[in-house]
């Protein structure tokens, strides 16, 4: 067996989600090689070579791989796939974008968002927003897999000494061009990397009131999230959404403020180690999963919490 893990990176460093994907690949067994495809991504390639347990790093450094356009990246991965039994990536917005393309071009099924490795062809994955866990076995010789970011302990980012090899293949499908991005620059940790998250729901009433959470978040070094209801209501942008259709998180502490606890939201956060719910409705379903519940008006409780920290 041999695994090719396609890395998430920003040309400078490797994202934490990739350390989780590598951990899954190591559970599958066999060598783990990492592909870093980008433009001006030599530093990310070097960083990948220092990751624990990596055998070889392939660096495809070319303008056509800038911004990981799915059409070009998929063709590159398909060309490299001949040498590997398992093609692995994280369930990131990039992995979700290009990996099904890889699978279709190889004429194999994709196993999306695995949460456990049972054997080299059998995996667990959540379905129905995490309301059921399916154990699935693929009959395809080549396995294309995306890995849930919260399901495995990441491997160490340092301690390895993999060889670095350049990949010359230039695949330009000429189908799409990147124009611009608006990546929110935060002083706070990213949602999927934060050890503490405080999230607001419909109970926040408007976007302005999220400032209440910001002050608490700054004191705790926490990231700020939101329920789909808060996003749909236009309080906050979609990249803050935690849930089935947003980000899947599992921090040490998750504080749900004014969130009722719809199953779509619980699907995104119920693997958190400690859950706190603050809600004035004592029947809110969020209390059924919370370790500590406080039945209170958030507009009183959150400033009090802020003052006590």
């Amino acid at each position, binding site marked *: 067996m041999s695994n090719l893990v396609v890395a998430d990176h920003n040309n400078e460093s490797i994202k934490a989600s990739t350390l989780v994907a590598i951990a899954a690949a190591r559970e599958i067994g066999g060598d783990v090689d990492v592909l870093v495809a980008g433009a001006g991504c030599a530093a990310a390639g070097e960083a990948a070579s220092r990751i624990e347990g990596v055998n070889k790093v392939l660096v495809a450094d070319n303008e056509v791989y800038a911004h990981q356009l799915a059409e070009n990246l998929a063709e590159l991965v398909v060309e490299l796939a001949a040498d590997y039994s398992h093609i692995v990536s994280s369930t990131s917005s990039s992995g979700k974008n290009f990996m099904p393309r890889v699978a279709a071009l190889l004429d194999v099924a994709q196993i999306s968002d695995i949460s456990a490795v049972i054997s080299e062809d059998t995996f667990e994955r959540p379905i129905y927003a995490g309301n059921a866990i399916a154990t699935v076995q693929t009959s395809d010789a080549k396995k294309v897999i995306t890995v849930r970011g919260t399901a495995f302990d990441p491997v160490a980012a340092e301690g390895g000494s993999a060889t670095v090899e350049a990949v010359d293949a230039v695949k330009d499908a000429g189908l799409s061009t990147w124009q611009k991005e608006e990546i929110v620059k935060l002083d706070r940790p990213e949602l999927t990397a934060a050890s503490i998250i405080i999230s607001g729901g419909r109970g926040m009433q408007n976007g302005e009131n999220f400032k209440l959470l910001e002050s608490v978040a700054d004191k705790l070094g926490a990231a700020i999230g939101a329920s789909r209801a808060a996003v749909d209501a236009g309080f906050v942008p*979609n990249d803050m959404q935690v849930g089935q259709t947003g980000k899947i998180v599992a921090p040490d502490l998750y504080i749900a403020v004014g969130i009722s606890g719809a199953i779509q939201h619980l699907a995104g956060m*119920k693997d958190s180690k400690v859950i706190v719910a603050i809600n004035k409705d004592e029947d809110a379903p969020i209390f059924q999963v919370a370790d500590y519940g406080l039945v209170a008006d958030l507009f009183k409780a959150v400033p009090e919490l802020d003052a006590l920290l």
Partner: protein
Amino acid sequence: MKVLVTVKRVVDYNVNVRVLSDNTGVDLNNVKMSINPFDEIAIEEAVRLKEAGKVEEVVVVSVGASNCQEQIRTALALGADRGILVETDEAVQPLGIAKCLKAVVDKEQPGLIITGKQAIDGDNSQTGQMLAALAGLSQATFASVLELGEDSATVTREVDGGLETISVKLPAIVTTDLRLNEPRYASLPNIMKAKKKPIDVMTPADLGVDVTPRVKTLKVMPPAARKAGVIVETVEELVDKLKNEAKVIS
């Protein structure tokens, strides 16, 4: 231009899904079935493009059992012009669905294909991308803004950490994210009108597609249950518990 929209029949998003006691799957008996919510957004986007005069025809396609006609009919009531059902009793997986859709795309030659970003049953998020690969077309997944031009479309995508804008050559596959639009409800006159709109039925075999599943589900289990904890009376007590009992803040 013609737009092709895909719809999947799934358990309604309000249903609390239960795992069967023999662990072979989830209980679908007497459960409300609906159009996958992301596919409703796809229909809405296509109908708005037609209303804006940018598109002449909206064709809606589904792959599944004969009762998927209910969801196609709903899509017709929402403004699609005609339907196609690729009928099979096989539990078709994303790769098989993408192959059926590829055959439909070859026949219909749409200028744009809009699909939901994921179905809320399998949560795979594969079909649109697989269709794009099989048809050799460009893709713009997780779209929150779609601007349709003559030969290309400009799409703003929801990505980790923010938004990204790309331009894709037409024909293209666009998969919908939540904020692309807010779907309408079907009006009664439109529901009546939809009954007269045509639905073309064919089988995967008619299209020359093998939909044999590649992935076997060995078992389906409920997730590990989380116990409800304690209700604290005051914010002081909460902070004390977090510091001294759970030890998650200092």
